[in-house]
């Protein structure tokens, strides 16, 4: 019986774990963080006045239980989203009022009110894509402060006045002495005010609270801490410049507005860059203006502005940012929130380097074999003005000439009559045929496009193939075009002095439509005979290019279906025992696929299209098998070519627990000296005709100022039938897809 009870309790505990998490993270959420250490530090700080701490804890608990009871999303609850406003409202209640039933009731009502306001503001603001920040806190506390003036049964307490009494209660005389000693340290006035403002976020006006929170901030995010300093001291400078008294910050509740605004704008809702720091500095006087102005406005009511300036400035600024037409100003809103300025920055810069140019349609080169680009974007001859985003392709012989013999006949030209293929599946939008081929050297400027096919791939996305051979177009208007089925032959019709294929992407179906800049999916570019894989880009003039022809084995083995499970057999050390674990393949509602390792609670996001398998992000501990798979197969082209060498960059956020990374964080918005490179080459296969295994060598390299500091090599074996073996120094694992 006892056993069953234990299990029942365990189950209860597990089922309600999210409430505990929500409770803790409600504390760090105030700084947009999900850092456990920061949460605990703040929790301790609130208990410096025990009654305030208890009120806060009680308030958050009430809100979360209410959220659970009313059936709100567990994930949202566990992140502390529904708790932090209540915390901010109930902390001062415990601080200002005397203990008693009246206080209990007020805290309870405040929690309910704040929770309702949280839900309301969250959903209203979410719709316009803006954060609701601490609006519920500001409004709730105002209402309560106004209301309690009429409540006769509630009395103001003296805890906030006699802080040391509280400290004595918790930590005895030693704590009191400690705090006293700390207060007497001769700190510069600005720094003292900064620390007190940090404590003031949780209504604790002392250096110890400030120091604890500052330490927590550094642990949570170096960039956030740097931003808090930047914001606060910019405001200070403005104060002295404008003739405001800095000391007012000491006893008003205004100082933290600068800190929170700086973190929000400089690094949390925007990617932390030099520009975001610049704007943080620019925006601080505005916050000051609002703070002082609102203070004057509210003075007759006796209310404080609390976080009102922060709540006004941040959403307005983000709204303004979002209305821009161009992103040239260097401010980038965070799209996928990783809950830390560092992680946001590293994920974003990795995305920026690797995938930002990826388009929704992965176009293939419209031909087979190796061709040369005779004219690219902004070509000198004809690719200009509205038609500047186009390519001309030709074939060249060993001597660089485009023809054999004397070139007097069309058939002398290597590319003449070669098949043209659709760049992607689509529908034939229009066909022009019947224009005769020109003699070499001649050009038909009247029907300048010559015989042309325009394919529609999506609304506003068309591809155009021009100068085709008359009578060679195999499809007619309305036909489906399949990328693997021949479209026409290269000709010399229209404005074409020698046979070539003109290819362009346009947004409109007309033959004269303007071109748009649109990349190809993947292609190989040959440099002195050595191929390199180019992704999400267009070839340049004179490039020798060729399509990537995907290999069936690689494609099938590296194709993972949501719902699949992957068995992982591994040996931790050469003489260790054989272990086993299991991963799951999921696809979320944004269509992002990922492997999830329940055992270590780690997630690796990946993409597998027709031509490439690659990881995009990793979250979780680094000492497990999923991370080994992530590093070893970070990017695998689905094509076997012994001459191909693939290189890429891993996101820096996957480096943890390294002092170098810690050092990098401080200057990450301005300069990256730390790099995490990935390289891959194909070694061998067992059989060229009918391969059953491919051997690859991959490696990851960490470097500081381009000097290698750590290198890991992996031998990867990709087998037919869904088996992947990875060997690295002392590690060996085998993945088997369970059908």
């Amino acid at each position, binding site marked *: 019986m006892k056993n069953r009870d234990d299990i029942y309790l365990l189950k209860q505990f597990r089922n309600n774990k999210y409430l505990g998490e929500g409770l803790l993270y409600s504390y760090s959420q105030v700084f947009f963080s999900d850092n456990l250490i920061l949460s605990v530090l703040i929790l301790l700080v609130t208990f410096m006045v025990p009654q305030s701490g208890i009120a806060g804890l009680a308030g958050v608990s009430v809100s979360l239980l209410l959220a659970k009871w009313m059936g709100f999303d567990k994930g949202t609850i566990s992140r502390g989203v529904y708790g932090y406003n209540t915390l901010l409202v109930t902390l001062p209640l415990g601080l200002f009022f005397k203990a008693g039933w009246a206080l209990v009731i007020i805290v309870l009502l405040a929690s309910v009110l704040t929770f309702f306001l949280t839900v309301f503001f969250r959903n209203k603001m979410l719709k316009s894509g803006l954060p609701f920040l601490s609006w519920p806190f500001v409004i709730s506390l105002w209402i309560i402060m106004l209301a309690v003036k009429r409540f006769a049964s509630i009395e103001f307490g003296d805890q906030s006045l006699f802080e040391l009494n509280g400290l004595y209660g918790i930590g005895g005389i030693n704590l009191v002495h400690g705090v006293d000693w700390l207060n007497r340290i001769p700190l510069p006035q600005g720094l003292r005010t900064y620390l007190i403002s940090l404590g003031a976020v949780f209504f604790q006006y002392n250096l110890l609270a400030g120091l604890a929170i500052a330490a927590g901030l550094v642990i949570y995010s170096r960039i956030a801490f740097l931003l808090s300093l930047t914001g606060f001291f910019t405001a200070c400078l403005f104060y002295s410049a404008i003739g405001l008294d800095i000391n007012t910050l000491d006893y008003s509740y205004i100082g933290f507005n600068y800190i929170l605004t700086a973190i929000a704008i400089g690094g949390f809702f925007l990617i932390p860059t030099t520009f975001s720091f610049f704007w943080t500095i620019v925006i601080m006087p505005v916050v000051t203006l609002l703070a002082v102005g609102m203070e004057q406005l509210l003075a007759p009511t006796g209310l404080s502005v609390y976080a009102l300036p922060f709540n006004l400035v941040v959403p307005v600024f983000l709204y303004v940012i979002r209305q821009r037409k161009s992103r040239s100003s260097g401010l980038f809103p965070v799209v996928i929130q990783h809950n830390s300025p560092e992680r946001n920055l590293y994920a974003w810069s990795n995305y920026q380097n690797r995938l930002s140019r990826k388009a929704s349609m992965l176009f293939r080169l419209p031909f087979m*074999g190796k061709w040369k680009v005779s004219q690219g974007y902004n070509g000198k001859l004809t690719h200009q003005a509205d038609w500047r985003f186009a390519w001309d392709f030709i074939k060249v012989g060993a001597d660089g000439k485009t023809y054999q013999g004397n070139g007097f006949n069309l058939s002398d030209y290597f590319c003449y009559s070669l098949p043209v293929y659709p760049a992607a599946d689509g529908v034939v939008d229009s066909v022009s045929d019947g224009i005769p081929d020109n003699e070499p050297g001649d050009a038909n400027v009247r029907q300048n496009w010559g015989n042309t096919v325009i394919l529609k791939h999506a609304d506003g996305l068309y591809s155009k193939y021009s100068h085709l051979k008359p009578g060679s177009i195999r499809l007619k208007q309305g036909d489906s075009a399949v990328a693997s089925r021949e479209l026409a032959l290269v000709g010399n019709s229209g404005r074409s002095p020698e046979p070539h294929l003109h290819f362009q992407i346009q947004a409109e179906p007309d033959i004269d439509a303007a071109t748009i800049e649109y990349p190809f999916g993947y292609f190989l570019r040959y440099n002195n005979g050595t191929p390199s894989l180019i992704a999400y880009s267009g070839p340049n003039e004179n490039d020798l290019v060729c399509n990537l022809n995907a290999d069936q084995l690689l494609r099938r083995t590296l194709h993972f279906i949501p719902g699949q499970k992957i068995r992982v057999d591994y040996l931790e050390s050469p003489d260790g025992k054989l272990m086993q674990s299991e991963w799951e393949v999921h696809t979320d509602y944004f269509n992002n696929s990922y492997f999830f390792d329940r055992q270590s609670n780690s997630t690796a996001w990946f993409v597998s299209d027709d031509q490439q398998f690659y990881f995009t992000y990793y979250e979780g501990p680094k000492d497990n098998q999923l991370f080994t798979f992530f590093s070893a197969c970070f990017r695998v082209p689905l094509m076997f070519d012994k001459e191909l060498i693939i290189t890429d960059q891993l996101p820096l956020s996957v480096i943890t627990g390294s002092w170098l990374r810690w050092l990098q964080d401080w200057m990450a918005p301005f300069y990256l000296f730390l790099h995490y490179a990935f390289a891959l080459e194909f070694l061998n296969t067992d*059989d060229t*005709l009918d391969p059953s295994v491919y051997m690859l060598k991959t490696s990851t390299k960490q470097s500081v100022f381009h000097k290698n500091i750590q290198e890991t090599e992996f031998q990867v074996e990709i087998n037919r039938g869904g088996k992947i073996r990875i060997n690295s120094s002392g590690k060996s694992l085998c993945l088997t897809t369970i059908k």
Partner: protein
Amino acid sequence: MNKKLFEPPVIKRMHTGMPGKNGTSGIIEPISHIDNNSVSTLISLFGSPLFVLSEKTIRETCRKAVDTFQSRYPKVQFGWSYKTNYLDAVCQVFHQEGSWAEVVSGFEYDKAIRNGVDGREIIFNGPDKSEEDLIKAANNHSYIHIDHFDELYTLIRLAENIEVKPRVAIRINMETGLFPKWDRFGFNYENGEALEAVRKILASGKLDLVGLHTHIGTYVTSTSAYRIAAEKMAAFAMEIQGKFDKRILYLDMGGGFASLNTLKGAYHNAADTTPGFDQYAEAITGPLIRAGFDPDNMPLLILETGRALIDDAGFLVGTVLATKRLADGRKAMILDFGVNLLFTAFWYDHMIHPVREMTGTTEDAVVYGPLCMNIDMIRDQMKLPLFQKDDHVVVSRTGAYNMTQWLQFITLRPNVIMIGMDGKPNLIRKAETLDSLVQNEITPDHLLP
């Protein structure tokens, strides 16, 4: 100013003849240099006669051929036809360019292995494969192209005792509109023999059928024959897939592409009749692309063309031994090489070029080799400039078959050099000596001198 050349006066009958495409001009372009190496210097260094191969021409021709097919078909593999020229250096150039090896005898098979070719990249053709050859090829995972039922039965029997499942293809002959029909090799397509062979292979369960092979002829100038062959091969592969649920991994379309040498008795010059690689490629790949194979999993297209890849890269350089006038008044020229080295002279009207600039005065002449046999005639009639004793001559387009079919008859085989990519000549086969000739002879003791 150079001293004017003296040419003895001749009296010749007026004969305008039929003007060809290029009129009746008799000037033959001299070949004074091969890849920037002076022919006279090469002769002084390596002797006369001398075979000269151009590595640059081999590579460029090979790349051109591969590129021409790859621009029309996604999976293309060339197999170097060893019998065309199996000098190691030549084979290695092709292997470096990515070619597999296509061999037709046990000795050629061993040579390919010796050249470092992976067994999985050797195609074993031909009607004569010994049991040892078959076992060796099967164990090396090479592709054995079965030529006849007897070979099929032998292989099924041998497979019992071989650990690996031999990988096989069948050679198919078919009606492609060519005459004479090459029905002596392989199984016939039209009468159902080929299907029968496939059925037997699959029913035996002992062999792994991976491909189909055809080779419709040699020096085929008709691309339509290849088109028909490709259509039939694709249809047959689809039929096998449909009937037996067996995917054919490759279609070997063989070789037989013509080179630019003019066949004896041909009315037109070969340059006017021989199709280019692009025309062959168009004829072969068109039907395969449109046959309805899974576009992500097309069968590999294998080509074994030999002649068209190497003929242009070979030159036979020699010296005029004498000029004379025959009893009937015709002019005759005797060279230091004949059909012993230029075996293809039996098929082609080879072009004989002077090395130095000569006047346009030509005279019909017979060109003989050095053998004291009547058959040793390189050209029975050719309009030749007025050569003199010790003049050097160059026969172009001799890369195919000559260095494999040459005869060690009356004379010894000369040096073979290859001019490398750096333009420097490399000796790739030393001239034979008396020792190399007699090294395998055994004289019984009582006959020793």
